[in-house]
Every structure is written in C-alpha cells, then in structure tokens.
C-alpha cells in the first residue's frame, strides 16, 4: 500500500511527544515491533515497559502508573485489549477514572493476513458501552499523529483506534481536531455519508462517484464515537434528510448504532449502515480486497446511498 501506515505515524508521534511531556510512559505486550511503540522505547527507554504477552496485566500496571502521576499509553492489539483486557479497562481505568490512554493497534480488518482471531470488529461496541471512556478513531496516518498530543493532554481514559495499515488520505494540516467535534469534509444536500476511520476515505471516493451520477452527498467524519457530535448529526439529518453510516466494524454497537440511536430519538430519517454484517471475516491477501469482500467497498456505499435515497423519496 502506498499510503503511510497509521501505526507508524502513531508510533513516531508518541515517541516525539514523549520528549515534550516527561510524564508520558509507554507500555507494550511484546508487540512493540508491530504497534511501533518501539520508536518510543528507543527514544525513552527509562519510560518504556514491556509487560510480556499479558494485556490484562498491562492495563493494571498502567492504572498504577497513572495513580502515581504518569500518563501511560498502553499499546497492543485492539482485539485483545478490547476483549481479554476489557474487565481491567472497565474496572481499573473507567470506573477508577485513571488517566490511561489505550493505543489499540491492528484495529478493524487491518491485520488481514491473520484472520478472524486477530480482527477487531467489536471493539468500538465494547468501548462505547463503558461509562467514562472517550473513543477516537482516526481516518488516516496524519490524523492519528495529530491526535497523540491532544489525547496525551486530555484528562481521562481514551481509546485511540489505530490501523496496522494506511488508508486513503483525508486529513490535512488545515483541519482542527477537537474531541467530540465531527468534521464536515464535503458539503452536499441530498444525503449525508457519516464515516469513521478508514471508511472516511472510501466515502470520499464514493461521494465523487455519486457526484458524477448527479447525487450531491455530504461527508461527515465522526472521529470521536464517544462523546458523539449529536449537534452535527442532527443538523445533517435535518438538512439532507437521509444518512448512510460507514465503519470498519460490525454494524452492531459501533458508529451505525450510535447514529441510529441519536436519530431515532431526536430526528428520525432514513438510515443505512455500511459495515460488517454480524459475521466473522476471512483471511485475505491484501486489506483493500478484504474490506471489499466484507461489505466495505465503495460500491457498497453507493448501493446503500441509492437505497436510502429511495426510502427518502417515499
């Protein structure tokens, strides 16, 4: 893939910001060569702790470091952190309100070679359900890097979802990132594509193709799944009258669910959800093909758009 990988951008940003804020410590679970927290380890060895293959323990050790005044960034595979270490995250991070930052790498389908055991497609549902957790999903490498200082200085638990891979670039230096504030990346009046993570770039591509068909799609990036930018979503629903959500995650409990919950209560409009349809996904040869096969293709976004516009018209 030509695009820079999100994990590398994150890893380099973490190492760099570790030089700015001496209270930052990093932990990993024998995956630092994968998550690329090893950039931090090389630059700040006295503040790096490799806990071995024991994610629950890493979370607890990080909670202790946070109680001692540090800002721990824990690094590992999203699927293991969000499943095996979920109790530790719930109890010792969210409930105890410790200032732990979760760098959840290899998220979504991005570990395409390793298959369903390694895919993280229910992490957003798990994290979103935890009181006190802030959930952030960057759309590309540059955005992931830009989040690191913001997350580090924010006071409270954060789940930062990091892809192993690159994605279609969407972020540029002119954009202002603020926790809980979505970004309108393209204006449009016929419907709104609401996307997160790698699906933002795919939706941008879909919007271009839709324009050629005479469909004027708005594109909203929801990087913060929690707290959700309710205002921006209701505005989009009110002004365009139809929504398609898109996420590299099961449609149960993630972005699509969050948007559906919000709209159903305040401003019901036709909604279609693009995402993984309650299934386990196969191993792939490359991420792009795998995402296409798993219902995340540009064609799928366009098909969902046509369905939602059909419903809007009736």
């Amino acid at each position, binding site marked *: 893939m030509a695009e820079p990988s999100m994990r590398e951008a994150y890893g380099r940003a973490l190492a760099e910001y570790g030089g700015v804020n001496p209270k930052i410590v990093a932990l990993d679970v024998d995956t630092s060569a994968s998550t690329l927290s090893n950039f931090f380890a090389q630059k700040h060895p006295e503040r790096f702790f490799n806990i*071995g293959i024991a994610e629950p*323990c890493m979370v607890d050790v990080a909670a202790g470091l946070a109680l*001692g005044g*540090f800002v721990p960034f824990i690094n590992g595979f999203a699927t293991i952190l969000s499943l095996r270490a979920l109790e530790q995250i719930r109890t010792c991070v969210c*409930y105890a309100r410790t200032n732990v930052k979760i760098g959840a790498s290899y998220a979504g389908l991005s570990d395409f070679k390793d298959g369903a055991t390694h895919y993280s497609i229910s992490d957003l549902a798990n994290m979103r359900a935890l009181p006190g957790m802030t959930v952030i999903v960057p759309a590309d490498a540059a955005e992931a890097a830009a989040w690191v200082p913001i997350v580090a200085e924010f006071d409270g638990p954060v789940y930062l979802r990091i892809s192993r891979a690159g994605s279609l670039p969407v972020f540029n230096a002119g954009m202002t990132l603020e926790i809980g504030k979505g970004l309108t990346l393209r204006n449009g009046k016929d419907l709104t594509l609401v996307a997160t993570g790698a699906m933002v770039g795919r939706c941008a591509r879909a919007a271009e193709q839709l324009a050629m068909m005479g469909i004027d799609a708005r594109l909203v990036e929801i990087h913060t799944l929690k707290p959700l930018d309710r205002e921006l979503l209701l505005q989009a629903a009110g002004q365009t009258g139809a929504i398609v959500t898109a996420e590299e995650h099961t449609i149960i409990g993630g972005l699509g669910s969050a948007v559906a919950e919000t709209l159903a209560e305040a401003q019901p409009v036709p909604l279609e959800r693009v995402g993984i349809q309650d299934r386990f996904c196969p191993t792939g040869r490359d991420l792009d093909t795998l995402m296409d096969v798993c219902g995340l293709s540009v064609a799928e976004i366009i098909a969902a758009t046509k369905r939602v516009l059909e419903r809007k018209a009736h």
Partner: protein
Amino acid sequence: MATLTPERISELEEIARRLRVDSLRLIHRRGAGHPGGALSAAEIMAVLYFHVLNIDPARPDWQERDRFVLSKGHASAVLYAALTRRGFFPLAELDRWGEVDCPHQGHPDRLKTPGVDMTSGLLGHGVAVGAGLALAGRLNKLNNHTYTLLGDGECQGGIVWEGVMTAAKYHLSNLTAIVDHNKVQLDGSVREIMPLEPLADKWSAFGWHVEEADGHSVRAVAEALELAQQVLDRPTVIIAHTTKGRGVSFMENQSAWHGNVPNAEQLKQALSELGEVQHG
C-alpha cells in the same frame, strides 16, 4: 516504623479487636458484606494502618505517602473500619453504608472514600496495579512503599501471576504483597476448590522474597513487614497464615460465613466473644 514495644503490641491487638467489632457491626447494619475475610485480616490491617503506612489523614492525596491496595476488595468493612479509626472520615458516615446516597460503596472506590488509594472489588488487580504504583514511585524518585493485600482464593486467578512476574522483572523492592491465607473460600476449603500449595514456593519461584508469618500475631506481621523493607533487590510477599472468621467461634473456618450477614442474635454473640461490653 515505631519500635515494637510490649505496649505498642497491646495497642495494636486492641485496634485489631476493634476493627473486628466495627466490621461486624457495619456488615450487620448494611445487611451485606463479607465477615469471614474481614475478620481474618484484622491484625494485618491494624499493623498496616496503625504501625507501618506512612500516611496522613489530613492529606489523603499527599504524593509521597505509602500506598495500599485492598486487592481482596470484599473485605471493605475492615478497610473502612481502619480508615475511620485512623481519622480519614467520621465513623458516623458509615451509619448509612449501603444507602444509595452514602459515598462509601460496597467495594472500595478511590473516588468516593478518602484514603482509598485504588478502587477494587473484582479480584486479581492488586499486585499488577501495585506494580504500576511502585514503578511510578521509582520514576518519581520517591521513598514510598506500596502494599497490597490479597486473598488466597484470589491467587487462583492468572492475572495475579502476571502482576507477580512484572514486579519481579522490575525488581520492585518497594512493593510488598500480603496474602491473607485463611484457607477457606466461598464454596469450601481452598485445598478442595483449587489447591494452591506449595504457595510460598510458587511466589519464590516467581522471583519474590517470601516471608511466612502468623497473621494473627501483630508482632509477627509487623516484623515480617519490617523485614520486607530490608530486601532491596526484589518484591516481598508475606504469606500470613490466618483463620477465616477469626475471633467468632461459629464463623471460624466456615465457608458459609464468607459472605453471610449475622442477624441480631448472632451479632450479639459475636461481639460478646470479641470482648465487647454491650449496653442495653
């Protein structure tokens, strides 16, 4: 640590007795709690809170204080008794323990109870969280010490040993764990449910310095904790041999009293056995 004079020992013994009385009263009034594991830990808690821990009730957030994590959070009654007797909050606050608007929770909550260093309840967290606290103490160049108290049944869970390995890897001599080894858990005896022996050898094999002590002798507990401070290359665990339900004849060694609540009659008998003069 103050010198362990005979007067001091009697003082600590009396505090332990009072912690037992307080714990049972609290559990009775709330109609919920875990008496067995509170009673087994009374001397350990008395020695920690009234002899060992360098803490200041006027400054519960004092950065240089020693830290204590009650890994066996079920024994919250004895922790609350120790904190209130130590002056962190008035005993009267616990009159309403269990009411929804009472700050003090069923299990310890660091955000709601002054003096609670870490939230706990589900088992297994103390050693790993303690390792993080000890690492933080070292990074901050503090001279403080972190203590955690865990149950023996708790040692059946894998995360305990993940934390044990981590503390050994980083030679955390500023971390001490105490196992309240009362040999009884919810469903029966530890030996029957899931054997742990040789427990001391296990900790030792994992790279910890091990002390074994009579957990109901304040002298033995205090001396073991003092020895722990002299070990400079590794963390120390004190296997404190205790009796579940200690001090109340009908509760001792009975798994049924792990989480049962004494009724008025049972409380009366228990307090009488604990030497409490009762009025009315």
